[in-house]
């Protein structure tokens, strides 16, 4: 399956028919090669690409290989390997004979794209059921073919044979190869993450798994290291022009006058301008860049929309809540319990706006030809982008083909969907295929942001030192001020600059844990955005949306309570958590890290260089994670080194332990970066974090020396997510370790040297 011999350069083009739409496959890497899919889709009439058709997920090709069509995508953690393992397992075919095709609207149904760490939890579940159903159908066909009942048959490597006589055999390829399944599934009528369409088959008992659970390697690594991988930035089509967008220096301003003469000396450069939408196109990329820099624009006199950054948290504190939600239902009566408290512990925590700042700014290519639209994008949600393009171009969805192509990083609703929509407007305006890439200052300064928030926690303690009530409230900008995808123009920069009526959503969250206190209330409140239109501080999903913020606060606070009561922080947690899987991850992390019981802070250190340890734990949609950070603090410089992490991780059944381990490592490092460094800076007029100097992230010199991962496998529990859960306890684990080292509690992220130094002084 690893085909390193295949050189995938952009000059290799093949035009194929798939799913009724014209598919242009350009230099697709091996995993996304359409040649195989084409074999299957051309042989005979394909049933419609709908969620209730088995053929929408699984095809057996003429040579016996299997194509799996997946409506989600891998963002770099090797999800497609795990999905291939699941499909191979259920079908009883070798792993190497399965190819997973991801995120192409012409070959897959809308399974939600990359979203909420549901790749295996929801997407994999569906693929498992589809593969199991395909096996059942194939066995029925084999029974007819061989004249034996199904229970007399067995399958090995895609060949069905009689248990009693191995010579009586027929292969999947002989039975159905190159033809389509025409089998209805019991679809629940939902699209996106909750899409579920089982057949009649039961999947295998996990104790019989042979491929699921194996540490199979990714095949996309070799093409990447040999420079053979095509990203969405690398796709080219004939006649394509290059574009750049122009954003205002004062957020909310719109162009009043655009002087096209100012770029007249740049070959082929011209302007696309409609209301607040302003871009330039040119035949050559460098000319588009120069034109965007040089174009003279007179902007409207917009009132500076933002508060002083120093007043951000007061703004959040004082803003009227737009929505308040208590979830789950309040246990007991929190307010009454606080009236009886012998002692109240109370604290407030603050988290800044953060940027996706993907490795490269977003890029999209849109071609509009004969009424058909093709879009190559690194979006996490190609099916939703198709809907967005349909709406903004006023074209029927069936004429729109979005081809997910790996982008320059992701981590949530980054700038990819905005870029696809902008490119579509430009392509329509100039009548040529347009490749648009944002510039770095736009990738950092104008992506949708992770919301800033404050978190207020209080605990009521009775005379015996028992926690009798717990009250936790998050208040901040919405995680869905713009939604998680670009399916609605008003959620995109293109729609907002073109004056489409806005609709800001409300969403936040509560701590995910199992602390049992007699009286307990966890709630959230959202506030209105600072600028309702085309804001560089519009907020949306950033990896583990609002999880890091909430659990920074809630898990720091549990440590504060433990310290106030003089109890070891792990012992305190074990006293109060009720979910046995929480207990087991906390114990596993403690054991692996060699944790010895004592209350925080340490009292045995002096001098400028001190070290400490901190625990934090969290759940996330069925996954349980506990982690212990061991941290060095330089009191003089304020510099933190998060030196070692010990992570215990339980996401149910482990499909691929190596992939899981690497995913967790990435989460932890990304989480450290967000904790120690990341804060979107802004002034009254604009976002001033516009590159890696003004939006610093973790450097290799600050990388932990070790991320020690303990995987807890529960084959009997269906897999839950791993792409985000281990992000969320990182900040609290570090904060708790800093407290252990110094006795000082830091309640505001990021813990940059300046912040830490002033907190310690």
């Amino acid at each position: 399956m690893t085909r390193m011999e295949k050189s995938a350069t952009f000059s290799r083009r093949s035009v194929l028919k798939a799913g009724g739409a014209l598919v242009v496959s350009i230099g697709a890497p091996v995993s996304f090669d359409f040649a195989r899919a084409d074999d299957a889709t051309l042989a005979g009439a394909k049933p419609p690409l709908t969620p209730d058709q088995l053929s929408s997920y699984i095809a057996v090709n003429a040579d016996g290989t299997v194509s799996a069509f997946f409506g989600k995508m891998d963002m770099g953690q090797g999800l497609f390997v795990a999905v291939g393992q699941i499909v191979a397992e259920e079908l009883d075919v070798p792993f190497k004979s399965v190819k997973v095709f991801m995120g192409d609207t012409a070959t897959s149904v809308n399974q939600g794209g990359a979203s909420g760490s549901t790749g295996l939890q929801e997407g994999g579940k569906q693929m498992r059921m589809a593969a199991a159903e395909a096996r059942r159908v194939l066995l029925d066909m084999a029974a007819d073919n061989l004249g034996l009942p199904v229970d007399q048959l067995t399958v090995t490597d895609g060949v069905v044979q009689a248990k009693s006589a191995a010579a009586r055999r027929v292969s999947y390829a002989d039975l159905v190869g190159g033809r389509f399944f025409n089998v209805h599934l019991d679809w629940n009528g939902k699209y996106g993450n909750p899409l579920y369409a089982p057949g009649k088959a039961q999947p295998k008992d996990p104790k019989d798994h042979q491929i699921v659970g194996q540490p199979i390697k990714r095949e996309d690594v070799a093409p990447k290291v040999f420079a053979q991988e095509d990203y969405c930035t690398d796709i080219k089509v004939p006649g394509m022009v290059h574009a750049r967008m122009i954003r205002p220096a004062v957020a909310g301003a719109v162009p009043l006058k655009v002087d096209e003469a100012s770029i007249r000396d740049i070959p082929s450069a011209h302007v696309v301008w409609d209301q607040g939408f302003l871009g330039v196109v040119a035949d050559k990329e460098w000319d588009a860049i120069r034109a965007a820099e040089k174009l003279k624009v007179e902007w409207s006199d917009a009132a500076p929309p933002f508060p002083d950054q120093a007043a951000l948290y007061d703004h959040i504190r004082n803003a009227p809540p737009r929505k308040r939600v208590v979830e789950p239902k309040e246990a007991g009566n929190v307010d009454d319990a606080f009236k009886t408290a012998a002692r109240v512990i109370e604290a407030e925590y603050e988290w800044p706006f953060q940027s996706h700042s993907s490795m490269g700014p977003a890029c999209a290519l849109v071609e509009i030809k004969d009424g058909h639209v093709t879009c190559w994008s690194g979006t996490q949600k190609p099916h939703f982008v198709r809907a967005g393009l349909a709406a903004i171009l006023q074209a029927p969805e069936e004429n729109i083909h979005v081809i997910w192509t790996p982008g320059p990083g992701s981590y949530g609703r980054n700038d990819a969907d905005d870029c696809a929509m902008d490119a579509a407007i430009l392509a329509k305006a100039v009548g040529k295929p347009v490749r648009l890439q944002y510039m770095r200052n736009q990738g950092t300064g104008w992506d949708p942001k992770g919301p800033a928030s404050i978190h207020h926690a209080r605990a009521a303690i009775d005379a015996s030192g028992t926690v009798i009530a717990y009250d936790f409230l998050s208040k901040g900008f919405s995680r869905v001020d713009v939604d998680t995808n670009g399916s609605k123009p008003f959620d995109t920069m293109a729609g907002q600059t073109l004056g489409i009526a806005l609709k800001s959503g409300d969403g936040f969250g509560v701590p995910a844990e199992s602390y049992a206190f007699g009286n307990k209330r966890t709630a959230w409140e959202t506030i209105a955005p600072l600028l309702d239109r085309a804001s560089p501080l519009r907020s949306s999903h950033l990896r583990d949306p609002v999880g890091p913020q909430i659990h920074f606060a809630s898990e720091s606070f549990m440590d504060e309570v433990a310290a106030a009561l003089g109890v070891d922080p792990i012992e305190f947690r074990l006293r109060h958590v009720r979910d046995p899987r929480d207990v087991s991850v906390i114990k596993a992390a403690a054991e692996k890290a060699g944790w010895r019981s004592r209350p925080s802070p340490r009292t045995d250190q002096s001098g400028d260089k001190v070290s400490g340890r901190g625990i934090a734990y969290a759940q996330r949609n069925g996954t349980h994670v506990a982690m212990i950070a061991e941290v060095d603090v330089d009191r003089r410089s304020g510099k933190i080194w998060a030196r070692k992490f010990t992570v215990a991780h339980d996401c149910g059944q482990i499909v691929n332990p190596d992939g899981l381990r690497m995913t967790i490592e990435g989460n932890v490092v990304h989480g450290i970066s967000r904790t120690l460094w990341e804060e979107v800076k802004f002034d009254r007029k604009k976002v001033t974090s516009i590159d890696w100097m003004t939006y610093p992230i973790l450097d290799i010199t600050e990388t932990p020396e070790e991320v020690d991962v303990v995987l807890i496998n529960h084959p009997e529990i269906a897999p839950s997510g791993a792409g985000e859960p281990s992000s969320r306890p990182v900040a609290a684990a570090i904060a708790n370790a800093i407290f252990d080292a110094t006795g000082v509690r830091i309640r505001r992220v990021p813990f940059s040297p300046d912040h830490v130094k002033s907190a310690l002084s």
Partner: protein
Amino acid sequence: MNQKFSLNVNGKVHNVEADANMPLLYALRNDIGLNNPHFGCGLAQCGACTVHLDGQPIRSCITPLSAVGAGKIVTLAGLGTPEKPHPLQIAYIEEQVPQCGYCINGWIMTAAAFLRDKKKPTDTEIRTALEGLKCRCGTHVAILRAVKRAAAMMG
């Protein structure tokens, strides 16, 4: 004003006609047709565009064509091939380093020059040599593992 340049890239000479101020990156990507390196920042802050010029890692996103001269340029594609891989490429595959992989030029091209000149480097020396390069997926721990593995292979 366009000028003519002869660029020696991965052992082949390419003639390019372009603005002398145009950074090398755009010539490599658009005129010569090498998809690596990548545009990450255009500011020499991230490394995604790194190539070797006469054996030294440079940021092609800020290197104007006029500064390249007859220098020998090597990109990631020229560093090694599946048939003849560079030890770092082998190590990257063994350690399964990249996630999105968009940053890869910076790390491999910088580490290749470093390991060529520095045998048996310490952990601190490796970190210092790679300082400033960006990876957004957080593969740093795996990068360090791979560079150490490659260093061991390179003796």
